[in-house]
């Protein structure tokens, strides 16, 4: 049978437990704005009686539980990776959208301007001003192609710089992740919740950069691998991603343990940047080059069949493009023609008043001779604009959807792991009252002991 001193022990255990409860509530309130913080609750258990008819020995603090949801965290990580991918893609696409301009103030106007100048030349083929106008319009068109191609190339370069920066961030994060992993493993599950919170934050940052696979270890650590298995983090060790530049563009490839993992990074901000640089912008550049190539070769073919104002067989109108690749950037009016518009071919017979070649040049406007004979110049340009616009709209839509999904998942996580001020206030009140009652019990036992002591004096 227990004595009064055991009662004091019960009171002491209760005071300790409820002070811990108050501390946990205080810790939760203190970290309500800490990113990644998971709410804690104190787990109490009765100290069971050790003899028959015994009341028990008080209360024990079994532990402080962190309400982490690995499932929701994993889903948020995956969706966040997609959102970062879409955001990176959308940012780049917005720049292209801005570069191509609006109908009537872009290459479509330059193309129409050239063909209109050919039409005007056909009405007065001997007019020097009409000839000069054609050359000026052609130079404007060539500059338009060059400027747009240059913007796309510059965007590819800046995206490449962003890829370098993102890989640098990834390496820092995986390094930190490995350090945290090591600390968690070494503590063998004791007092690791704060470390796990920070590790979860680092993991979220890593997943927003790249789609990595997470493998849970038996020792409490997490391993990170690329989709095809190359290890980024193994326990407390991280493997840095290195960069290899490819000439002449300087585009970097991602190397991990001697493997080129560039194509494996398809999600996260890094994945978005690589998709933007290699697939999207590369595709746009190819389409633009194709249009420039088609315009130059079609105009050249008609022009070279005619005669200039001096009655001589005409040469090229545009500098002949060597290949489709680079045709937009290199587009230029033939230097001889640019210097002397009399070399412009308007006649198909050599007669100075003949305008058949000028008419044929003007006729290219409505001829489906671009894109492998399927489109006019304006249609080919509008197809290009549609592709960019469609990509922007799709990325916006996908990004919006993902944003909503991430937000919903974050709300779900908050339901399980977030700190509620109302809840913490209730806990404060509960533990405070319990503490007061335990203190009262302690005082009562103490008074009883005092009475007892007085009896024996």
């Amino acid at each position, binding site marked *: 049978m227990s004595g009064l001193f055991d009662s004091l022990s019960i009171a002491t255990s209760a005071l300790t437990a409820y002070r811990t409860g108050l501390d946990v509530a205080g810790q939760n309130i203190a970290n309500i704005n800490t990113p990644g913080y998971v709410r804690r609750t104190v787990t109490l258990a009765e100290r069971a009686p050790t003899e028959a008819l015994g009341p028990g020995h008080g209360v024990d603090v079994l532990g402080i539980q962190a309400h982490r949801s690995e499932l929701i965290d994993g889903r948020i990580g995956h969706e966040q990776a997609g959102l970062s991918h879409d955001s990176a893609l959308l940012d780049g*696409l*917005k720049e292209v*959208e*801005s570069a*191509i301009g*609006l*109908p*009537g103030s872009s290459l*479509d*106007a330059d193309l*129409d301007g050239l*063909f*209109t100048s050919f*039409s*005007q030349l*056909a*009405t*007065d*083929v*001997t*007019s020097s001003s009409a000839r000069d106008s054609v050359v000026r319009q052609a130079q404007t068109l060539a500059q338009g192609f060059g400027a747009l191609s240059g913007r796309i190339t510059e965007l590819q370069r800046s995206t490449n710089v962003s890829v370098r920066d993102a890989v640098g961030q990834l390496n820092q994060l995986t390094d930190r992740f490995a350090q945290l992993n090591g600390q968690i493993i070494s503590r063998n599950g004791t007092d690791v919740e704060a470390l796990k919170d920070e590790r979860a934050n680092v993991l979220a940052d890593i997943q927003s950069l790249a789609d990595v696979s997470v493998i849970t270890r038996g020792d409490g650590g997490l391993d990170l691998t690329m989709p095809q298995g190359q290890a980024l983090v193994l326990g407390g060790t991280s493997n840095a991603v290195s960069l290899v530049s490819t000439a002449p563009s300087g585009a970097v490839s991602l190397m991990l343990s001697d493997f080129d993992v560039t194509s494996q990074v398809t999600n996260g901000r890094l994945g978005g940047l690589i998709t933007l640089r290699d697939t999207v912008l590369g595709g746009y550049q190819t389409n633009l080059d194709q249009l420039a190539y088609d315009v130059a070769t079609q105009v050249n073919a008609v022009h070279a069949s005619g005669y200039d104002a001096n009655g001589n067989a005409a040469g090229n109108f545009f500098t002949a493009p060597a290949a489709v690749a680079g045709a937009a950037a290199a587009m230029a009016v033939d230097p001889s023609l640019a210097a002397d518009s009399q070399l412009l071919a308007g*006649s198909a*017979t050599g*007669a*100075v*008043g*003949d*305008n058949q070649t000028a*008419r044929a040049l*003007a*006729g290219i*406007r*409505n001829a489906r001779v671009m894109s492998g004979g399927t489109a006019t110049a*304006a*249609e080919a340009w*509008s*197809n290009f*604009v*549609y592709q*960019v*616009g*469609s*990509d*922007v*709209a799709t990325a*916006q839509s996908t990004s919006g959807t993902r944003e909503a999904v991430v*937000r919903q998942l*974050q709300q779900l996580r*908050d*339901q*399980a792991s*977030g*700190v*509620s*001020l*109302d*809840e913490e*206030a209730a806990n*404060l*009140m509960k533990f405070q009252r319990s503490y007061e009652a335990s203190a009262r019990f302690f005082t009562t036992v103490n008074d009883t002991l005092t009475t007892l002591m007085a009896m024996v004096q």
Partner: protein
Amino acid sequence: MRVIYDVVRDGLFAINTASSQLARAQQQLSSGKRISGAGDDPRGTQQAIAERSTLNGIDAYTKTNDAAAARLASADSVLTGYSDKLTSAITTALSAQGTQVNPAALASSAQALRSLRQAMVSDLNTTSNGNFLFSGTNSNAAAYAQVAGTWTYQGNADTAQVEVESGRTVSVSFNGRAIAQGSDTTDVFTALDTLATAVENGDNASIATGIDALQRAFDRAQRAQALLGTDEQGVDSAQIRLASLRTAAESRRSKLEDANLAQAATNLQKADTAYRAALGAVSSAERQSLLDYLR
């Protein structure tokens, strides 16, 4: 169920969404444009480019029409004067026929015929913007000039055509020889010179031959003018059709690109209301918690 409201995440999302809609409505109303980027309406942007290309093509045809109409009017005017002079020459030659005409009158008639010939040469050597109208496509050479004492056509038989609308062309330069000579063995200027000599000599048979040649020249001029008049009518009707097509294309373009201002104003009002509502919702979210009641 635990309900957690994150002011920063949930509140700002609502404000940003409403703010974005407000900015878009403001942009549409201030710019008058429905599309601010290809991503707003990819298909609409594509169609707008096509409509603008159509409009530019129509404008190009319209400019060509204007230039062609000016050339045709100029040629028409020249041929009217040319025909009038031929009529005068025929009248002059007819008055010189017979045996009762005195030598002084014959000499005067011969002089008049040579003057008319000179004026008709000038007519066929008319230029438009520095181009000889009646030299075919050899437009930098006068149609007729005397070479070694002989009237010689310096142009060619080709004519420059311009497209005044899709599939329709008109000639803006003319074959002077077809007008001045046609299938005759000599051109009208040589015929006039011969006629003047015949008038001086009182050679009635040669005068009659000359009058016949002038009559054929008159018929050729009339035929050329009739063809030219047909082309002028074609240009006029093309211009009317082009104006109609332009109006339709402009309407389609406007529908694709321009904002419906009444709709934009309504959207602005709705977006403004949504924005204020979002602000209000977020501010009310900063409500009191249980902590405020624990004293």
